């Protein structure tokens, strides 16, 4: 199959660019109607449009509310739609302007944070004004985040909308911290590439037509799937000025090969997604202001945007890139993908020189990250199977926090390594022999991808586990069965230095739940062991208790706070299955099974996610 690399380029005429008032207006009294600010904003928009068109690229123009009051911005959009085929769409970013402030009497500007009543009023206002000006309703919209209630309302009132920018990948507590705890975009846990959001939760893809919100969602930028997970997301993505923000360029030559490496690595993902790969570039005008941005002068900001567009333009000329508007992309996506087609990304470090490799997987039932630098451990897990209804905005339990909760998150709740006591969240295995124990998290390896009609499969390079008197060579195969809501782990002992020896394998998952670094109350969680001689269950009370059952089949946790059930199961008849309660200093639960294993033997376990209510 011919690979297709599809790109959405989006510009927005933002009359009061984020950052610009704070940066260029430093030392001046706030005045969002300043003539110089409006003039500069339009100049930036014109520059971005000209740069894209010069390189033969089509743009989606996301009109902002403020720009709907500006005749020049409107005329520019109409002209470029006629001349270049650009789509005129409508953004829910860029609300701030004098008209908005007077009408709504607020400085809030993030649509997902308003009360539902205000969301509806603003949407009707903005869409109505757009219709008055252009004579039609838009087919595309978006914001940094679109909560499910907002999307459902937009789709019900304005059915022409079929595409939306709906989240910004892993823009959560890390971005908040980077901005000195002053940038409230808390929405970790979504897909990194386009998806069809469910009606229940934007982050969780729809599993069927009933769940389909009716739009195709695209992420705000295409982000580095290793660097963003650990560091500030806004340094590592297909946003040339973000790369400058990360200081990822040579100060003498103004070269930034990293930008092209991200684009090319995204192109390489076609290998895991039936020949399809995707990129999104959406640079807000605040990043191209004439005063420069932080230590980058305007000339460098401008050059980086020109270079980014030129690279896309070059790929297009070579027949390696398809530029689509957002609405065109929605049609393309729906013609290519079925609900249960997963999105996969085997991603390597392209910045720190580490050769670290991870695998990201997303489907309607889960988002998962496998870390090859930790022996194939599962280091991030979002249980989309729960389709958690999580209302966001003023008047809901989550005014700002729109993240999809995790069960495992190696950065926020430790992973293998903890300080002094307790355990961190991870799903891995330990091998023990003669009083020694080795966790596979310490066995660095690499993965190779394969697929069948029903599954995506990662086969890891074998690793050696060295005990004092025995060396064990073990291989891990991880299988994601389409639509099953399960992750299968097969571990096989390929050889042992003493072929007669026996070792014990302990397959385990340490989990919790949450959306931030801080612990949640575990009270209410039920831990159970099913099957075997010692089946039983307990309600979580931080008492460090354990239940183990010889011949058991399943260990599970039901977490009512997020309507989620997670289970680790085995088909072995001679395993001991266990659950372990944590304690206040280690607010975790452990699900596991142990089994004796010899050379040539294989152990299979499944991690299964379900909605619990």
């Amino acid at each position, binding site marked *: 199959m011919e690979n297709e690399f599809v790109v959405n380029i989006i510009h927005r005429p933002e009359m009061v660019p984020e950052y610009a008032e704070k940066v260029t207006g430093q030392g001046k009294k706030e005045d969002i109607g300043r003539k110089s600010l409006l003039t500069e904003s339009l100049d930036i928009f014109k520059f971005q449009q000209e740069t894209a068109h010069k390189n033969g690229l089509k743009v989606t123009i996301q009109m902002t509310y403020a720009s709907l009051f500006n005749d020049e911005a409107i005329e520019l959009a109409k002209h470029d739609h006629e001349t270049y085929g650009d789509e005129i769409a409508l953004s829910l970013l860029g609300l701030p302007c004098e008209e908005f402030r007077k009408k709504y009497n607020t400085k809030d500007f993030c649509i997902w944070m308003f009360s539902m009543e205000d969301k509806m009023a603003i949407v009707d206002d903005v869409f109505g004004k757009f219709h008055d000006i252009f004579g039609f309703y838009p087919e595309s919209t978006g914001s940094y985040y679109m909560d499910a209630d907002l999307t459902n309302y937009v789709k019900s009132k304005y059915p022409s909308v079929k595409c939306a920018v709906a989240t910004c990948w892993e823009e959560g507590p890390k971005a908040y911290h980077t901005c000195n705890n002053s940038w409230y975009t808390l929405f970790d846990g979504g897909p990194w590439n386009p998806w069809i959001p469910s009606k229940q939760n934007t982050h969780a893809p729809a599993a069927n037509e009933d769940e389909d919100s009716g739009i195709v969602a695209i992420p705000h930028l295409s982000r580095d799937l290793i660097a963003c997970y650990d560091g500030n997301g806004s340094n590592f993505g297909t946003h040339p000025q973000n790369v400058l923000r990360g200081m990822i360029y040579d100060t003498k030559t103004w070269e930034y090969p990293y930008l092209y490496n991200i684009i090319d690595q995204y192109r390489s993902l076609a290998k895991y997604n039936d020949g399809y790969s995707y990129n999104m570039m959406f640079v807000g005008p605040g990043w191209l202001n004439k005063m420069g941005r932080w*230590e980058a002068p305007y000339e460098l900001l401008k050059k980086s945007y020109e270079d980014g567009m030129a690279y896309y333009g070059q790929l297009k000329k070579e027949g390696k890139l398809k530029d689509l508007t957002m609405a065109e992309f929605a049609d393309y996506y729906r013609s290519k993908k079925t609900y249960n087609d997963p999105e996969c990304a085997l991603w390597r*470090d392209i910045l720190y020189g580490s050769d670290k490799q991870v695998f990201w997987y997303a489907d309607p039932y889960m988002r998962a990250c496998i870390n090859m630098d930790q022996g194939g451990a599962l280091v991030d897990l979002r249980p989309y199977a729960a389709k958690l209804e999580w209302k966001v905005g003023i008047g809901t339990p989550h005014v700002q926090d729109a993240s999809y909760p995790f069960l495992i998150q190696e950065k926020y709740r430790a992973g293998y390594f903890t300080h002094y006591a307790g355990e961190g969240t991870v799903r891995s295995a330990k091998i023990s022999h003669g009083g020694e124990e080795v966790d596979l998290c310490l066995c660095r390896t690499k993965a190779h991808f394969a697929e069948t009609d029903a599954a995506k499969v990662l086969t890891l390079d074998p690793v050696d586990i060295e005990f004092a008197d025995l060396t064990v060579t073990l291989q891990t195969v991880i299988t994601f069965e389409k639509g099953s809501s399960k992750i299968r782990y097969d571990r096989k002992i390929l050889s042992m230095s003493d072929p007669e020896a026996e070792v014990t394998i302990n397959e385990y998952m340490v989990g919790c739940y949450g959306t931030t670094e801080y612990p949640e109350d575990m009270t209410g969680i039920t831990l159970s062991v099913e099957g075997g001689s010692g089946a039983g269950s307990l309600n979580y009370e931080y008492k460090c208790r354990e239940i183990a059952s010889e011949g058991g089949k399943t260990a599970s946790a039901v977490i009512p706070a997020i309507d989620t059930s997670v289970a680790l199961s085995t088909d072995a008849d001679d395993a001991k299955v266990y659950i372990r309660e944590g304690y206040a200093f280690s607010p975790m639960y452990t699900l596991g099974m142990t089994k004796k294993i010899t050379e040539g033997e294989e152990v299979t376990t499944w991690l299964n996610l379900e909605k619990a209510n």
Partner: protein
Amino acid sequence: MAQSGKGKLNYRCPSCFLRDLDIDMFYDKDKDEFYCMRCQFTGSEADVLSMNETVRTRYKAMMQRFEKFDFD
């Protein structure tokens, strides 16, 4: 002593940047130095630029152009 302002460019604190914090620095013209409001960093423009280069040392592959993204 007059109030501080911004320099000709808007430098961030390189010490905070190393811990993933973007903090704008302010410029004290009496001392001819930039300073961070959050941590104890102070320095001349040359100090800031020099430390920004130190920041980049963690990006060992920053100038490498990759052509292969798997390990097959």
